């Protein structure tokens, strides 16, 4: 009773802490945003303007906050810019005219010697702009998604990818357990009895995937009718390869599941196949979750990822080999014809005797004893 109460208290404290942290962060961010001074905002806008490929570089003295007008009698020798307001030009600007968060309006008689640029607005030109008139709806200066992920993003991506693959494999496992149980059992049994041969066949199969594909495409390409079949053949080939890999990997997962759930898989046909499959797949999932969650660990994370990859690759290779050996689980090792032994002649073990006979060896004569002399 006392223990239950303390667990409840700990849970409440934890929840309070989590919400408190989130709230504090939110409040902090809000305060930060509110307290941002216009000068800082202008500096940030100038920095973005400089970094944007479609922006340009301006000095701090050229920009001011709010709407701005260059009168007909005015002549600005450098650049001019407004922040959060339109920039109207009736006179002459030798340099660039920029509005961040407003329009650049060049009225009749107005002249801009450089570029006219509006960020979050438009350039409306009824005067003269010698350079380029350019409008962008917003800056493009942030990181491009995915070019360099933060550790948090990388972790999130890796975890969701691992889970997505797991869910897909589980769906396939259920389908295979319902529709091709005997095939799966045959492949698993082959892996159990012929492990190294399965690995060898799997390796050869993986090496042969691309050459076989090219060969079949070229063979089809020889005839006009064959050319038409190329897309279908390519699709069928990809499907067959993926199917073989999947079936083999599921068979390996089944064996792993058997090992975990203490099922030997032999003589126990009615064992809960799906549970064993899921248990096996979960082992691989855990490996990948560990690898995915290790983005912060540097070298150790890389080692974990390598381990996850190697274990998955070995499992897939062995499974593929067993699938090839059993022709997709249609031929059990028992049903395969035994390897024919070389023919043995009945008397082959005897020493052949030449027709001309064998000369008898002379029996060695013992040396005469000294007493006989």
């Amino acid at each position, binding site marked *: 009773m006392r223990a239950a109460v303390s667990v409840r208290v700990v849970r409440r404290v934890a929840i309070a802490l989590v919400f408190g942290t989130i709230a504090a962060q939110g409040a902090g961010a809000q305060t930060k945003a509110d307290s941002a001074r216009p000068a800082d905002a202008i500096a940030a806008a100038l920095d973005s303007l400089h970094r944007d*490929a479609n922006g340009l570089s301006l000095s701090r003295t050229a920009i001011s906050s709010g709407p701005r007008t260059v009168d007909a009698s005015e002549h600005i020798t450098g650049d001019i810019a407004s922040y959060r307001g339109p920039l109207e030009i009736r006179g002459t600007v030798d340099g660039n005219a920029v509005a961040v968060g407003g329009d650049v309006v060049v009225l009749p008689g107005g002249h801009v010697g450089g570029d006219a640029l509006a960020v979050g607005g438009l350039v409306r030109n009824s005067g003269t702009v*010698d350079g380029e008139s350019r409008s962008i*709806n917003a800056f493009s200066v942030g990181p*491009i998604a995915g070019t360099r992920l933060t550790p948090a993003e990388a972790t999130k991506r890796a975890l*969701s990818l691992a889970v997505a693959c797991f*869910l897909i494999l589980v769906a396939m496992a259920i389908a295979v357990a319902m529709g091709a149980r005997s095939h799966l059992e045959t492949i698993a049994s082959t892996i159990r009895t012929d492990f190294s041969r399965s690995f060898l066949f799997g390796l050869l199969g993986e090496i042969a995937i691309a050459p076989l594909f090219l060969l079949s495409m070229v063979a089809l390409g020889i005839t006009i009718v064959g050319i038409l079949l190329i897309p279908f053949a390519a699709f069928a080939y990809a499907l067959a390869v993926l199917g073989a890999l999947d079936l083999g990997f599921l068979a390996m997962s089944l064996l792993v599941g058997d090992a975990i759930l203490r099922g030997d898989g032999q003589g126990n046909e009615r064992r809960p196949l799906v549970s064993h499959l899921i248990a096996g797949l979960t082992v691989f999932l855990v490996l990948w979750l560990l690898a995915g969650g290790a983005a912060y660990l540097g070298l150790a994370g890389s080692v974990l990822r390598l381990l996850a990859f190697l274990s998955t690759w070995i499992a897939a290779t062995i499974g593929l080999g067993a699938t090839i050996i059993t022709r997709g689980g249609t031929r059990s090792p028992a049903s395969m014809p035994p390897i024919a032994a070389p023919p043995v002649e009945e008397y082959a073990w005897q020493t052949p005797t030449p027709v001309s006979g064998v000369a008898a060896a002379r029996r060695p004569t013992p040396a005469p004893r000294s007493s006989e002399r």
Partner: protein
Amino acid sequence: MKTLFLAMVSLFALGDPGADMRNWRSLTASRPRSTADSLHVVLRYDAGNVSISAAPAPLLYDAKARFDAAQQRISRNYDATARTLRIGLDSSTMQRSARHSSRARDREGFLDLGLASGIPLDLDLDLGTTRAKIDLSSLWVSTMRVSSGTTETDLTFGSANPQPMRDLFVDAGVGSITIHQLGNAHAQRTTIASTVGDVDLDMGGDWTGDMPITLRVALTSTTLRVPRDVGIALHVSKRISTVDTDGFTERDGVMYSAGYEQTKRHVVIDGSATLATVDVVWKD
């Protein structure tokens, strides 16, 4: 088990960060023609829709673009000394953009480029996975090179080129290319190459004399649309290919259309066809 699955699905629902974040940007840029007497355009575009046509009269170029800033960047740069406009995807984002090309972005992202008429243009277009509509009507194209990956390219020479084009080179890669009224290009040398896909060449237009074309096609269905008053000479080396030469006569390894000598305009096609079909369609 149920809890485990719910947890898994929740984790999966976290999704790919940024996978579905669209960050659309629009860009418009135009420059007055001023004293420019020629323009070299280098356009690189990997994913989306691209179009080229004539710009309104006082402008040297007029570009409008929409792009997803979460995945790509479009920029333009004009070098007044070299009279060169470089426009399109930043090279740092090009490959990435093609890799992460999505149907939605491809449909919505675009680059429309208008170019000045009345001055010679050198066009260098590198198109990736795009749908390109290039209408060169009323433009003066001096040279043109189009290199594309997986592209649907539609190229129109709607009016006669004021001066003969020195070189027209189109490498369609994997995809389809349709050229309308190729005769209006007045190209001194034309090379059309395609690796896989469809090539549709319309030899119509306002032209005289001979039109030499080098055709290199493989795994491609090629259709040559030829006006009836034009004679064709085909010298195509075939490798497991079908070239439609019904009514043609052979002399010295060259196939000539019926009445070739009597026609005033000739299309002279040289090249190779590997695992391809070449059909000639006569048009009135």
